[in-house]
């Protein structure tokens, strides 16, 4: 039972990283797109790729919280007590991101747009950094068991956490760039395809380098995790590296669809690898998954809800995609929006 709950938890983390991560990464590219003139075009592609999905991917995060507080309540209490600061920053960042993204579309003056655009971009970097640091804090065993607070600062300002934070930002940017290549292609904008392709390759190399350096950081700072990564989880580490290199090659050969899948695969393998490496601890070396687990009644309920979610939501989402692909109804679709000015179509999202 407790193992199943842990698996469900990691599915949530996986979903958030692969789907939500790309949203955050898009914000990073927004940040570094340059001045108003130069950055205008890449920003337009970025807007396109996240505009219609106003923060729906945070559902994954909520799911992670719910699984944690129902199925592993004591671990959850320890985490929130110890990591109060980065969690608070992340919460603020999420609201700020949503609000400023919406606002930057609605305000008209360039100066205001810039302010809100900057808020949006900075929070997009801050939030994944915090989540990465939180993962680092947990993985390096800095969150003590028993619902007591560990050190409020050292717990997340330490080598593993800094590594986690930087890696998270790199990975998000990498995912986003790869997805943005795809989006730019959908918009048939070849200049932007090239623009993001170069950046995707750069991000892939940087993320790979950080991950490689990270191995040495972990060897010194998070031994349990390091041991796990070099034994139990080794196949996953190798898989991740292979996917990463693969996506790099596919990018160079301009196979964008393949690159997308390989990139997602690389990230997914790292995350599963993290889970396997710290198994069977939920808080390494102080609390095992089994000891942390709630009574079977609770876990059963969470599993039922998860299964129902799969049964309800997947068909619904599939239906949505079918609608999206499908043409307009002949008798009704004729008066589609005449091209409105940019302000008009964007005002809401």
């Amino acid at each position, binding site marked *: 039972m407790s193992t199943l709950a842990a698996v469900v938890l990691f599915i949530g983390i996986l979903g958030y990283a692969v789907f939500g991560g790309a949203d955050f990464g898009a914000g990073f590219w927004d940040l570094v797109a340059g001045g*108003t003139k130069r950055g205008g*075009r890449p920003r*337009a592609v970025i807007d396109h*790729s996240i505009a*219609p*999905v*106003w*923060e*729906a991917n*945070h*559902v994954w995060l909520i*799911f992670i*919280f*719910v699984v944690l*507080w*129902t199925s592993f*309540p004591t671990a*959850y*209490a*320890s985490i*929130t*007590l110890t990591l*109060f600061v980065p*969690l*608070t920053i992340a*919460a*603020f960042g999420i*609201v700020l991101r*949503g*609000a400023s993204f919406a*606002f930057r579309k609605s305000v008209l003056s360039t100066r205001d*747009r810039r302010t809100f655009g900057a808020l949006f971009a900075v929070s997009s970097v801050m939030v994944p950094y915090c989540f990465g640091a939180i993962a680092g804090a947990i993985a390096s065993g800095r969150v003590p068991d028993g*619902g007591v*607070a560990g050190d*409020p600062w050292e717990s997340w*300002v330490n080598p593993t956490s800094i590594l986690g934070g930087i890696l998270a930002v790199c990975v998000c940017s990498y995912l986003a760039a790869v997805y943005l290549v795809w*989006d730019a292609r*959908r*918009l048939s904008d070849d200049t932007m395809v090239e623009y993001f392709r170069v950046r995707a390759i750069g991000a892939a190399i940087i993320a790979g380098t950080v991950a490689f350096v990270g191995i040495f950081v972990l060897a010194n700072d998070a031994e349990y995790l390091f041991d796990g990564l070099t034994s139990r989880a080794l196949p996953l580490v190798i898989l991740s590296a292979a996917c990463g290199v693969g996506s790099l090659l596919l990018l160079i050969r301009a196979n964008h669809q393949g690159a997308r899948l390989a990139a997602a695969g690389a990230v997914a393998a790292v995350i599963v690898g993290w889970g396997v490496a710290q198994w069977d601890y939920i808080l390494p070396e102080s609390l095992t998954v089994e000891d942390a687990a*709630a*009574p079977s*009644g*609770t876990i059963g*309920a969470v599993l039922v809800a998860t299964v129902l*979610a799969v049964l309800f939501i997947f068909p*619904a989402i599939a239906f949505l995609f079918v*609608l*999206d*692909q499908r*043409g*307009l*109804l002949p008798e*009704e*679709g004729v008066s*589609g*929006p*005449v091209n409105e*000015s940019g302000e008009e179509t964007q*005002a809401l*999202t």
Partner: protein
Amino acid sequence: MVPMLSTLTSLLAVNPVPWARSQMAFTLAMHIILVPLGVSWAAMTLIANYKAIKHDDRDALLLAQRWSKYMAVTFAVGAVTGTVLSFEFGLLWPRFMGQWGQAFGVPFAFEGLFFFTEAVFVSIYIFGWKRLKPWTHFWTGIPIVLAGVMGSVSVIAANAWMNSPSGFTLNDAGDIVEVNPWEVIFNDAMPLMAAHMVVAAYVVGGFLVASVYAVGMLRGRRDRYHRLGFLIPFSVACLAIPVQMGVGDALARWVYNNQPMKFAAIELVPETSSDVPETLFGHLNDEGEVVGGIPIPGFASWLSDPADGTATVIQGLNSFPEDERPTYRQANVVHLAWDIMVGLGTLLFLLALWYWACWIFRKDMPQSKVFLWIASAAGVLSVITMEAGWVVSEVGRQPWIVYNLMKVEDAATGNTGVWMTFIGVIVLYAALAFTTIYVLRGMSRRFRRHEEAGETDDYGEEDVPYGPSSRPAPHDEHSSSESDADLEPQDVS
């Protein structure tokens, strides 16, 4: 750097409990304003949609289309504020979640399920306007209504569990060893509280939407479109409010039987007695005597149990140990909030009577300015009513976070920086509220401008904050023309 930070932390250390309470209360009070819209607006939209298809009514169709777009915005803001709440459970009340999360948390697993379903169907509904046949499209709206109701019922189940915890077994150390999810969700307080909240959602949502059109009518927009925009939500609210009075009455009796301390605070009863008067306003002074107010002799006793009439005994606050019941000051807050809820609720009920009376005797809605003035205020008034009801429920539970099992001060975080996060939250929410209103008004202006220019509405897929990218494949004319517009440098406008 780390030691320096630690010094800083200890300098700024302030007792977190009052701040945590305030932050929780503030963020919940904001979130709950969006909830009625998320729960009831879809139903009203479907009524308009039905009318549009059945009677080939262009005005109703326009209303339904626009409402579905506004709904998407309020839904998205509800999701953002809801996300903050889920952070807060852990950040502010870690000990509560650590000890009781395994029971209290269960309903939230289902809440997530329902709200996500709702979100997806909101997208489908908006996408469907130009992609589905009218009736098929209508039916894709039904899951929004159901999921909205079920979602809020799930959250209320969690709140009701705090009032009447059940469905778990404790060992000698007081830790939970077994959980019965069914009994957690269907706890004693849940059915009535859930009913009261769902009906409240229809009352508040109805009055809130109607009030916008009432303002429009007062400004002289008396066309059929505005009339319909008023009639549909207002009728929904006016149907719901009598039901709400009945459910509220039953809920009050449940509180009388199961949460005597809360009831004593509601009725402002310091000492146990029979023949208790119903005191309107008034408060308890430091000695715990009732001061001021207008007493209606024997009425509180009579209401608590009409069968026994004024002989019904009501337990007083002082019959409970001082540290296990609300303080006098909290009791005063509860009592005032109670007066506000029941007072405004009665007022809204009278407004509904006026409305129905006119329909019955004159076959039309009341036309007078006074009526429209009150109707435009009804939106805000009903929100205040609902907030007051929540204050009754939440402050009346003090000092318990889990009734009779855990006190709030034992549940709170030990982090002493909560006062800073609270200030941050207030600033952030002010900005969020401003954004939301700004965006909604912008939409409304845009719709009107289009109308004046004689254009039809677009179906507004660009406006959908959820769902997959709305850019169809490049061969589609609409997408390419639009992307041209988007690819202009940003500072053009």
